[in-house]
């Protein structure tokens, strides 16, 4: 997964950085020695060959020769971004914007540098500036949408992804993420539609299958969801998360043995996956295998000591194992960790002690 993400960032970064360059200066038609321009062009070649230190040296030369060369600052900043020298990149973008205040590419670049440094408000602000300078610039819409999504502002994120799609109707990622925003806004039918569009544009965007399954489950289309999980896992069988989710869907479908098999597969891929331990405990509960359920929930708690759901489930198992006091402790602990329903269970079972408030 992360590989995909990196690849995307590089591609986006490269293409956006390339767009951020001013055109190669036609040195041959210009008078004088044109040292700055030559160095600049040479830097650009190095950059496109991903030879960043060489590019950096060239842009340094260009700026030394021509201290008001705005494009050279922009590109040196882009190079420093690639070299992960973010503070220096920010300084260069600042300088570029001072020399050329309405350059959308510098705003966009600075937004990314801010983002890299977790300056999210500043990043969002710069994406907005980039859009002011160039309202049809899809990547700025998309990146700002992602930031807003991560802030939990799904409505605004959805609007940004709309903007991205308007600017570039072929941007599969924008469809995908707009679907996710719709999902977060409980518009599951719209989400399903957008994930489908993302898949049509980019069939290898497998996360769309996983997420579409989630949306389908919310609209009661369990058979379709199960099919999507199957399709995903047929192409990518090393994702514990996907097995965990299909297990959840099978559980929902009352196929508890099938669910347990999926959770077990998830655990084989990632033995430290606390959610899969907890979910397998839930499956064991349904099959009345209470000892196994308690053991699985305990494994989840060991990995994640503040895991409220696992405490709740272990409480259920322990009640059936006739460990009444331990069950009470587990339900109370679940409530303490935020699942207040634990207190109701404890009260209904006649557990001693006060209800935690």
């Amino acid at each position: 997964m992360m590989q995909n993400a990196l690849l995307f960032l590089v591609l986006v970064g490269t293409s956006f950085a390339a767009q951020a360059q001013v055109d190669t200066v036609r040195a041959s038609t210009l008078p004088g020695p044109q040292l700055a321009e030559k160095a600049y062009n040479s830097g650009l070649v190095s950059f496109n060959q991903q030879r960043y230190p060489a590019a950096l040296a060239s842009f340094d030369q260009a700026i030394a020769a021509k201290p008001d060369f705005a494009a050279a600052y922009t590109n040196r900043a882009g190079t420093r971004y690639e070299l992960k020298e973010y503070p220096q990149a920010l300084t260069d973008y600042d300088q570029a914007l001072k020399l050329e205040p309405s350059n959308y590419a510098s705003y966009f670049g600075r937004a990314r540098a801010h983002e890299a440094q977790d300056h999210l408000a500043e990043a969002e602000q710069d994406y907005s500036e980039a859009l002011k300078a160039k309202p049809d610039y899809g990547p700025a819409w998309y990146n700002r949408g992602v930031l807003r999504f991560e802030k939990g502002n799904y409505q605004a994120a959805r609007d940004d992804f709309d903007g991205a799609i308007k600017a570039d109707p072929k941007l599969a990622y924008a469809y995908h993420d707009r679907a996710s925003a719709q999902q977060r806004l409980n518009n599951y039918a719209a989400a399903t539609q957008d994930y489908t569009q993302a898949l049509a544009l980019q069939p290898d965007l497998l996360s769309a299958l996983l997420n579409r399954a989630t949306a389908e489950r919310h609209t009661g289309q369990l058979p379709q969801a199960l099919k999507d999980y199957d399709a995903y896992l047929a192409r990518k069988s090393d994702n514990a998360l996907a097995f965990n989710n299909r297990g959840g869907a099978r559980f929902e479908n009352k196929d508890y043995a099938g669910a347990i098999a999926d959770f077990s597969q998830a655990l084989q891929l990632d033995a430290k996956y606390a959610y899969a331990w907890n979910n397998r405990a839930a499956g064991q509960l349904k099959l009345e295998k209470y000892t196994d359920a308690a053991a699985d929930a305990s494994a989840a708690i060991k990995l994640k000591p503040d895991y409220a759901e696992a405490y709740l489930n272990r409480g259920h198992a322990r009640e059936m194992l006739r460990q009444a006091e331990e069950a009470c402790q587990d339900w109370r602990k679940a409530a303490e960790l935020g699942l207040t329903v634990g207190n109701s269970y404890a009260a209904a079972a006649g557990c001693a002690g006060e209800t935690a408030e």
Partner: protein
Amino acid sequence: MPSLNRLLILLLLAAALPVAAQSTAFTKDNFGDNKEGLREALRELKTGDEEYRADPPRYAQALPHFLAAQTFNPNNAALNVKIGDCYLNSATKTAALPYLRKAAKLDVTADARTHYLLARALHLSAKWTEAIGEYQQAKPVGNNTRNGDAQSFTANDLQRRMLECRNGQKLMARPARVFIDNAGPELNSSASDYGPVVSADESTILITSRRAGSTGGKKDPEGNGFFEDIYQATWRGKAWSAAANLGAPVNTDDHNATVGLAPDGQRMLVYAGTNGGDLLEATLGGATWDKPRRLNSRINTNSHETSASYSPDGRLLYFVSDRDGGAGGSDIYKVDLAGKNTPVNLGPVINTAYGEEGVFMQPDGKTMFFSSEGHNSMGGYDIFKSVYENGKWSEPENLGWPINTPDDDVFFVTSASGRHGYYSSDRPGGLGAKDIYRITFLGPEKQPVLNEEDQLLASRLAPVKQAVLAPAVAVATAQVTILKGTVTDDATHQPLDAAIDLIDNTSGQTIANFRSNATSGRYLVSLPSGTNYGIVVRQDSYLFHSENFDLPAGAAFAEVVKDIPLKRLEIGTTIVLRNIFFDTGKATLRPESTAELERLQKLLTETPALKLEMAGHTDDVGDAAMNQDLSQRRAQAVVAYLTQHGVAAARLTAAGYGETKPEAPNTTKANRQLNRRTEFKVTAK
């Protein structure tokens, strides 16, 4: 070719014949080489038949003789039927099944009655589908008009049995979520133990047992063990104390059986076989039960009165009688114990054309458990629950498998919380015959909670946890509060036999009167939700003590332990008046205060030298000066009430202490409520 076919058929028949079982008659032809054995077997058969054919049949006496004959010749269809029939009429009914199955195999032309008996055995073993099949092959037998003829069964009987099997199929498909635990050797013996009755807080249990050591030592001629006696045990935190025979005067040489126990464990209902079956009541005076007294003639008639249960306030009695005018069989009636009205039949929602038995009213005063052969019973008596709300009984709900079985399930009681039930059952793993079992109700299935993640952003693909909300839980606990504790002398700490009045503050009426136990000082009061209760504990030569419990309708089960030290009338003694209420922020006495004010007035009238200081107290919410003023005005309001009702003003003073004298830190809502109070101090007597 036809002849070849015929030959083939003959061959097949010949092959089948040796394996088809055949009934073996008790004849010389079959047992020529063991004439002595045959003679002995025939003797056993004859004796068994004499008992079996008696009117009424003596199954218990017949069975050992039949079993002896069976040892000699296990392959006689008729004998297998008789043994099955004897078992069906014994305490171990399911033992009939293998014999009746064998009888059907030995005689493929089995008559309708054999099919019926096999159907009964299958039914009682919860083999519903097979049982229906056999009932369908059985035809009505005997004289339909003769009730009680053990050999006869009507077309209606068959239809009803099949319906019971279908009920059983449905109920078994959705088993009740319960634990059923043997109450252990402390309560159970190898003999029959049954009829458990518990106090509301499950601290005391009384049972009926036929164990050895019965008072008088008489044995039941029917072979059911010793005569019944009542035994008592107390809960020791983890287990019951060993059940002890209550002895005289409750237990006599005759049968003595438990029927009911008041929620506070201070009154007991017992059954006596005399006068066609009557109900008696005994009271716990200190540590011993007094001699049971027959309940009045409105309850006890020449008919059969069997089971009964008190309402939580002890004023009503729910009881079972087969008196004329009922719906059929025994019915459940309700009667006001102290009044003069005739008992009222609970009506058609509860009472069916068949028998009702074992009534029990839960301490919430509205949830009734009873057994019935009607409704959707899966066979014999099943236990049902019905709730009285808005002036009517709810449709009785079968408690379901495995609490109910195809056999009789009767005499079920619960704790006040409704979490535990007690009944007797003869099931595998017991200590012998019927045993007392405790049922723990687990409520609806508890749903597990799962977690999943999504990778929602294509450019990130970092997992995001999905919010999976835990479902809401239906907390179905009884809507009753149990208030219990010990009444003692504040100075000597000795237990006191005090009167406890339960008052409805809204109406000012006394709902019920109880007494604390003279020996232990213990008391217990059931307070069904939906009333603002005033509780007054009083004893001559002590100042009364008042408590308030305002329990809105729907308030869930709670058990409150409140020990009450009664104070003697001494100068300087302070008493809190918990049932004096003011409008919020004002010094206007609310009408609910009247009963408490009248009590105070009575105290002053009865003790002419008594002088009191009325004191008002507040919590620390708001401005201290305003609190001071409010408390002063409230104390004065009480003084004004008393002087207006004839108490000399010179005997009363009023003092406001505001928030200066809290009973507890003002840190919680409960403590603040404790601190907002009106009290009086004895200044002269």
